[in-house]
């Protein structure tokens, strides 16, 4: 990096004017959505076929957001997304890899009951 002679004028004069002609740095959300990496920690995806009802996910959850409920005679985890901190300790503790992450993050809603992921309806919402 070569050092040119240091000028005593602040460079802010030129820089602000040059920004009129450059593209703005704003992402125009929600008209333009950002690109997310594949292993982004969004909403959980629960595969009921792999679950063995051990209850380790519920025991290890730091936010106590997983409750084991009775579904068809077996205990399955029910996720409360309004308490979840999306740390994915449940995915790590699960011995059968039944909990996976997704890139869905637009979870804001006015209806709190939609934030409870019941085991039989744990499918990925939206795109």
């Amino acid at each position, binding site marked *: *990096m070569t050092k040119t002679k240091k*000028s005593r*004028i602040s*460079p802010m004069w030129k820089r*602000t004017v040059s920004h009129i002609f450059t593209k703005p*740095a704003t992402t125009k959300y929600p008209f333009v959505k950002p690109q997310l990496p594949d292993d982004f920690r969004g909403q959980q995806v629960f595969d009921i076929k792999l679950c063995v009802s051990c209850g380790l996910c519920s025991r290890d959850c730091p936010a106590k957001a997983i409750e084991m409920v009775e579904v068809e005679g077996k205990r399955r985890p029910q996720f409360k997304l309004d308490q979840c901190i999306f*740390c994915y300790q449940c995915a790590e503790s699960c011995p059968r890899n039944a909990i996976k992450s997704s890139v869905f993050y637009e979870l804001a809603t006015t209806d709190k009951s939609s934030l409870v992921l019941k085991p039989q309806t744990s499918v990925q919402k939206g795109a």
Partner: protein
Amino acid sequence: MRRQNQTSNNNIDIIKVIETKLKDKVQIQLGQLGKAAIVTINGLHRDVLKAMVEADEKTAITAITGLDLGPSLGVLYHIRTSNAFLTIRAEVPKDNPKIQTVIDIIPGAIFHELEVADLLGVVFEGNQLVGHFVLSEYWPEGVYPLRKDVKANEIKLNPPPTEEKKQLEYGKVVKIIIGPQHPALLEPEKFAVTVDGETVTKVEPRIGYVHRGIEKAAESRTYLQDVYLVERICGICNTIHACNFVEGVEKILKTEVPPRAKYLRVIALELNRLHSHLLTLGHAGLEIGYETLFQYFWRDREPIMDLIELTSGNRVYSSLMTVGGVRRDLKDTDLPKIKTTLEDLRKKLPFYRQIYENEPSIKARMKKVGVLKREDALKLCVVGPVARGSGVDIDVRKDEPYEAYGEIPFKEIVYTEGDTWARMNVRMDEVEESINIVEYAIDHLPTGPFRGKAPRVVPAGEAVNRVEAPRGELFCYIKSNGTASPERVKVRTPTYANIPAFLKTAIGENIADIPPNFVSLDPCFSCTDR
């Protein structure tokens, strides 16, 4: 101006000094709780401290931990010197918990003593606690939350008073209350500033508005859950809190972390430091009314947040640390992207340096504002860029290297002017150093596993650990008793140690200088109150 590569070359053996001065009166246990633990009886802690302060000018109190040991209360003084870290143990009986204060030897101990007095009920003679310090004013009397017989769910607060308080009297000397809700502060704290005209004469702080009782909550959760709890002490410096706790647990377990995990931890920590420093630099611009600089800095901070999202899956809470290593690996396909982003950021730095050198309005607002002289910085035990801006060269990454910092070359940035301008420049230069560190770590990333095995139940023991957060030295003390939950977790955050410095530098200055002065400390009140 700037002094480079000034690491501590003080070769004082502080343990020998204590041995010669106090011979049989104290018991020295080497290798425990730092370099050595010194057990004192009958209030000899003051003599030990005096001997250390006379021998080494950089002696400072890092933290004072209070413990509930059953029939007695333990008080641990954690001291750092130029080349060692020691602990002094003292004990007081529970029915007469009186101990002598040390604020006449080291004035920076005042906040630490008040907190132990508030949360555990230890009475420090000479430093009386009036009202409450960290707890709210409606806290019931005589209930000390960190004692083992107090259950957190069963405490009933006093009701608020029903009659209104009297009006403030207006006179020549006016008390202006900054906070708890105030546009200048990101988080709530109250500072009652007494002004005479436009000059500040006194600042009285009231902290504790964000006190969530995390230290007490950590005692009822397992170690695995505690990593996520401790991470949420602060939103900005979350990675370093998790790393601090995890290193402390690993010290008790005596496990070794694989080398690849050490380098991955360094990369995550330095990305966290980058985004935190860019946040402060922008926020300082906002405080002095320079909105353009604020927008530019935060625009340049966005690619760093994208990098954190790429490496950890979330923009803010990276949740990468776990006992024994890191939770996820860095893919080789991500490495070129990290390098290009950091290269772009490095190219933007000369513009900002020129602004700090040449812009007349920045120089008018930041130079000679909030000057902290070197002697005051040493006596008040300040840490981080506040200390390094006043000529005190302390940096835990250089004094006591942890993770892979011992193998990575980087410079320690020290400025000597001690004003707001110097502190901001320290942070700007540290941005460049962090970029260098991450690039070196990526180039020399070792292969191998990124996670080791760690048991869930930790054997009995205790450990101290300190790391360098973006705001300064972060310290934790963990005591385990052989179960799956820790017995005592104590965290001392850097802003907690720096607030007494603000109380001193604001005196005698214009009231309009309080916001830039305050922001240059980089306050983070979630950290302060825990």
